[in-house]
C-alpha cells in the first residue's frame, strides 16, 4: 500500500513539475516565467522531502532545504531584480510560435517516453513512473533555450533544464550524495551570476535583451 502510494505521489509530483515547465512555452511575460520557475522549484523541494521520507534517506531532507533556499528564494530574487530592469520586454515573437511550441512539447514528451523506456523497464524503483516526465522536462527546457529570443527567457529555460536533471537524478537513484548536490548548486549559482553579468552587458550595448541583435554586424 505504501509502495503504491509512493509511486502515485511521485508520478503526480513529476506531472505537476512538467506542467509548470510547459507554462514557459505558453505565457509570454517574464514575470510569469519567474513565477512558474519558483512554483516548480517549490514542488520539486517537496518531492525531495517525500522521497526522503518514503525512501528512508534523511540526507534528502538537507538537499531539499538547500534546494529550496537556492531555487525558491535566491535565484528568483535575482531574476526579479533583472526583470524589474528589463521586464518590459515580452517574448512576443519567438522563433517558433506558441501554438506550435506547445504541440512540439507534447511530441517531445512522447520522445522522452520512448527514450526512457529501456530505463523504466529495467528499473525496480517505485519512482520509475516519473522518469519519462523528468526527461521530458529536460527536453522542454532545452527547447525553450533554443527557440526563445529574449536572454532572460533563455536563462529561465536553462534553470528549468537544471530542475529536470535534478528530478531525473532523484527519481532514478533516490538522490545523489550531499557533497555532489552542494557542488551542483554552487555551479548553478555561479553559472547564473555569470549569465546575469552577460545580460547586463547585452542590454548596455544594444538597449534590448533580444539575442537576435547579437547576429547583426552593425547597429
Amino acid at each position, binding site marked *: 500500500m505504501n509502495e503504491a502510494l509512493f509511486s502515485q505521489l511521485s508520478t*503526480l509530483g513529476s*506531472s505537476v513539475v512538467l506542467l509548470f515547465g*510547459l507554462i514557459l512555452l*505558453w505565457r509570454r511575460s517574464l514575470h510569469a516565467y519567474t513565477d512558474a520557475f519558483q512554483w516548480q522549484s517549490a514542488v520539486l523541494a517537496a518531492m525531495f522531502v517525500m522521497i526522503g521520507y518514503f525512501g528512508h534517506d534523511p540526507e534528502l531532507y538537507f538537499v531539499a532545504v538547500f534546494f529550496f533556499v537556492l531555487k525558491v528564494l535566491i535565484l528568483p530574487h535575482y531574476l526579479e531584480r533583472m526583470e524589474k530592469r528589463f521586464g518590459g520586454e515580452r517574448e512576443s515573437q519567438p522563433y517558433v510560435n*506558441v501554438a506550435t511550441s*506547445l504541440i512540439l512539447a507534447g511530441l517531445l*514528451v512522447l520522445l522522452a*517516453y520512448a527514450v526512457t523506456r529501456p530505463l523504466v523497464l529495467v528499473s525496480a524503483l517505485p519512482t520509475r*513512473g516519473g522518469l*519519462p516526465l523528468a526527461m521530458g522536462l529536460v527536453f522542454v527546457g532545452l527547447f525553450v533555450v533554443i527557440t526563445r529570443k529574449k536572454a532572460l527567457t533563455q536563462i529561465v529555460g536553462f534553470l528549468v533544464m537544471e530542475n529536470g536533471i535534478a528530478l531525473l537524478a532523484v527519481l532514478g537513484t533516490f538522490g545523489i550524495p550531499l557533497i555532489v548536490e552542494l557542488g551542483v548548486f554552487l555551479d548553478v549559482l555561479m553559472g547564473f551570476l555569470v549569465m546575469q553579468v552577460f545580460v547586463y552587458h547585452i542590454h548596455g550595448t544594444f538597449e534590448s535583451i533580444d539575442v537576435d541583435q547579437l547576429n547583426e554586424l552593425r547597429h
Partner: protein
Amino acid sequence: MTGYFLEVAQALLALTLAPLLVGFVRWVKARLQNRRGAPPWQPYFELGKLFGKEVVMSNNASWLFRFAPYIVFASALAVTFLVPLVAAPLPFDGVGDLLVVVYLLLLGTFFLALAGLDPGTAFGGMGASREMTVAAIAEPTIALAIFGLALGAGSTNLGRIVTATLANPGVALSPGHLLAFAALFIVTLAETGRLPVDNPSTHLELTMIHEAMILEYSGRYLALIEWAAWLKLTIFFALLANLFVPWGLATALTPAALAVAVVTLILKFAVLGVVVAVVETRVAKLRLFRVPELLGLSFVLALLAVTSSFLLK
C-alpha cells in the same frame, strides 16, 4: 424494455434541465457582477417567446438555412441518448460510443457553420470561419481527452469507462484523469461559446463567434438553435461530471437509485455551473489569434493524459 423508457426519460430530463442550467450560470454570473440578474428559469420564457414568433428569412437563403436548425437540434438530442446522465451502462451503449458522440457534436457544428455562410452576410461568414478555427483544435481534444480515460478502462464505450472508474476508485486521482479533466474543461469553454473563447452575451462583431452564425435566425429556428446550444452545455457538463466523478450514477434501474442519481446530477451541475461562472467572471476574453494557443495547451494536456494512462499502466 425499461431500458428504452430510461433512455427516453434521460433525453427528456436533459431537454428540460438545459434551459435551467444556462439560466443558473447566467444568474450566478450576474450575482458575481453585483447585479440582480434574471431568475434562473428565464430561458424557458425565452423559448416560449421565440416559438411563438414568426420566421423572417432572407430571400437569398436556401433550403440549408431552413434545414440546419433541425439537424443541429437533432444531433444534440441524439448525443443525450448516448451520454451517461443518470445511469450507466445504458442500453444504447452498443449503438454509440465516444467516437459517435464526437462525430455527432461535430455534425451539429458543421451544419451551424454552413447555415451561417448560407445567407451571404458578412457576419455569418466571419462567425463560421472563427467557429471552424476553434472547432478544428477543440474536437480532436475532446476525443483525445476521453480517449485517455478509455485506455485505462479498455474500451471507448462510455458506460464501460464509468463502470471501470467505479470499480477502481483510486484511478480518479491519477495524473491521466486530472490532465484529461483539465483538457476537457478548457474544451467545454471553447465548444459552448463561453469566455475566454467567446462571449455568449455579446453582439459586437469584434467578439462574436456563435452569435455571428445565428444572427440571421428568428422565430422557431432560433429557438431550436438556442436550445441545441444549451443542450451542448448540458452534455459537456454531463461528460465532465459523470466520466470523472461517477459516484451517484445509478448502476441498477431501481427508483431509489435513479432518485439518488438525479439529485447528485443536479448537485454536480450546480457545482460545475458555479465554477464556469466564476471562471467567466474572472478572465477577459482572449484575442482571437490567442485562442489557438489556449486550445493548443488543452491539446497538449490531453496528449499528456493519453501518454500517462497508456504508458504507465
